[in-house]
């Protein structure tokens, strides 16, 4: 068996010291070693984006990275969006605009959109559509996701 390595994953500001095989994917470590199961696994080959998390602020597919590569880096997942009892504007907008049905792809879309808008609050409609085409949803037909992200973008700007 391959030798395990001790690393520290920092998820939503909390340190998780874990010992993993080098081949262990980041998404498996986040879910199974750190118990943060909000990040979902949809394809394990980097197409669907369900496992999108933010690493040092950038949207990343956690199925395409090894856990050891995230050692010491700052990871944000869907569990970290909410501040106390207050939902993130993106979470509120997804509920208000019926932007989710089964909800399996939702954490990936939330992190993708939040990560992009935090860096570039002025994404126009075409850029948003490009961005959201990075992830797959099988339930909604995307229309309401686009609406929700637009509404949340405005709200995030207003609060900034």
């Amino acid at each position: 068996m391959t030798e395990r390595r001790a690393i520290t994953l920092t998820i939503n500001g909390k340190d998780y010291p874990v010992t993993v095989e080098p081949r262990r994917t980041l998404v498996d470590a986040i879910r199974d070693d750190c118990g943060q199961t909000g990040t979902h696994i949809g394809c394990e080959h980097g197409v669907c984006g369900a496992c999108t998390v933010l690493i040092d602020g950038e949207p990343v597919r956690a199925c395409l990275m090894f856990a050891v590569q995230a050692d010491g880096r700052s990871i944000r997942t869907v569990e970290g969006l909410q501040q106390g009892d207050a939902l993130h504007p993106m979470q509120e907008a997804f509920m208000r605009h019926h932007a989710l049905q089964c909800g399996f792809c939702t954490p990936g879309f939330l992190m993708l959109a939040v990560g992009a808008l935090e860096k570039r609050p002025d994404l126009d409609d075409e850029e948003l559509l490009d961005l959201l085409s990075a992830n797959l949803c099988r339930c909604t037909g995307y229309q309401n996701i686009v609406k929700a992200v637009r509404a949340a973008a405005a709200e995030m700007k207003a609060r900034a």
Partner: protein
Amino acid sequence: VTVKSDSWIGASVERLEDPPLVTGRGRFAGDLSFPHQLHMRVVRSPHAHGRIKHIDAAAARGLPGVTAVWTAADIADLPPIDFREGPNAKLAPFRQPVLATDRVRYVGEPVAAVFADDPYVAEDAAELVTIAVEELDPIIDASAPPGEFAPGQSTEPTVCRQGYGDVATAFKEAAAVVELDLAVGRHSGVPLETRGAIGHYDAARDVLELHGAAKVPHRNRESLARMLGRSTAGLHLHEHHVGGGFGIRGEIYPEDVLVLVAALRLKRPIKWLEDRREHLMAANHSRQQRHRIRAAVDAHGRLLGIDNEFFHDQGAYIRTHGTRVADMASGILPGPYRLPHYRANGHFRLTNKTPAATYRSPGRYETNFVRERLMDAVARKLGLSRVEVRRRNLIGAREMPYERPLVALGDEVVFDSGDYAGLLDKALARVGWDALEREVARRRGAGEYVGLGLAVYVEKSGLGPTDGARVVVHTGGDVELITGGASVGQGFETVMAQVCAETLGVDYRRVRVVHGQTDRIEHGIGAHAARATVMTANATAVAAANVRAKALDMAAQLLQADPASLTIAKGSVVRRDDAGASVSLGEVAHHLRPASPTRGARDPGLAADGWFTTAHMTYPYGVQIAVAAIDAGTGAVRIEKMLIAFDIGRAINPMLVQGQLVGGAAQGLGGALFEEFQYNERGQPVSVTLADYLIPTAHDVPVIDVLITEDAPSTCNPLGIKGAGEGGVAAVGAVIASAVDDALGGTGEIARLPITPQTLKAIIDGRRR
């Protein structure tokens, strides 16, 4: 959204399901674990067809961390996977064994199962299992002559025949005959969550549990109990969050049986999660059919008869649905049109591909495409407009209820209500059809490949016969609605809560909805055949009305009032004239405790059951219109405009109805333009990643206009509901084909779904040469 006090039916309220799902606190199959669980990995056939000579699992068994490796010999006592409707002697020989016995029949067929402490180790061990197979020629084309399934058994187990009248005479008397050869490719639901199953045996209670159940937990419990020789009292299925169903999830698959048997025999919980590659070759496929169809019409374009010979590509085995998709295709093909004579012969054929069953709008997506292609062809043949030829054939509102001597899902086809021409008019007006047609023609004249498409269709929903629900008011005032329904992401909890809240007189947010738990209610129909809202909501309304009556009776005593003078608003019993005292439902429940001195002779508990039974399915209907433009350079299609007009009878939550229709349409678009499970000549699947099986992205789905009408409430149920789940997807193949064909000049060259860029580029390049 503001809602009139206690008026919940018809309100676009936010979903009760959403808070855990947007905060990462959902519980999908992969999120659930039991202490000391083992992880299962399935070893699958790499060959499409062959005789198993030898399976060597010694190296896998020797790997540290591996508890067991099973092949068919280890579970020889298990029967093949049975049909949901019970034993069927004719189809029985074609059932799938839990693990392949002497032959493998498709790439992806389970051959062995590895059980290990860790999922990575299980996967390592699975790679060490070697399978020696003597390869046999695979059957790839279901319309080629049948082959041999086993000695003495053909690969055509049955022909699904339906029809009425005298088709031969119709063709003899016809002014014109139109003949088409049409095909629909292999698609499937491809939910974002792959399948998962966890088997857990609780020896203390002697209860075997399957977690990760979906769609039809109660029916599956019966089937699994039969297969395992276990009492249903000691077998429970549990549905948690489900990452999309679309008809394919929640069937009984080999893996569901394996985790249960292994939990019993290995005495540890068994967790299995499918990876995406497995999903694309192991979960049910659907849709693939070829139709050779002929229509006889009179000089005015009225249909006299249809004669259809079609080939249903079932894949390698007959799974839980038996022949239902092919039967449904025959039963529903004539759609919204009068048709005096009809004959359908559906050749139900086995091939060496992944087994097929239902995918959202099964049998209708295919036949709406076939029938509407036919109507366009009739229009072309007689020089009529596509709208006019449909108008001349539509069944009239005054002809309702309209009985057709056909069967769908074992139910006689009786269209309960509908004004098809009325909806067509509304749809045409909504898009400004005439102006749109002129504009499209102008652009085509200027050299663009742009076209307008139309499809008219009847959906089916609300398959009965019976469903029940139980409403319990707790002493704190919270309401529990216990159903045997299932939630696959469609908003089941919200809609059921709305119906319960409206009937009972409480806020819908006070209603907790239980679904998919066989230990909470004895019977259930789950979520399939667009029946959940029709059947379970009507049962809920009955149960809630029973509770309401009991609450009013008890409150009348407490308030010293005539029950008829009382009503329930915002969770309290009040006088209709709003005067005097009130009593909350929680307090009423308190007075109905078993030990309550005020209860009198009433049965304890503020609770009641409700049952609803229907004689027939109910038939919503729709019109879809699309504008499609082809890029002559690449052959890519862009949908510029799309309308879904759909009559739903009564919308409980219009926002969710719209969500169902648009989401379904996106899936339909995938099947029309992008999605296909392709196989090479050796039967090797070549669409086993999401980079090969292309599901639409945000860029591919246009803004879809939705017109929801409630002109024809169902006459089959008191709430007037018709189903919404499948109406969006049902006619998308039809309307896109019509639009793309029109873009090419209406030549009828579009005869196959999906319509690929390669096909279109070849047509356009051919014309330019």
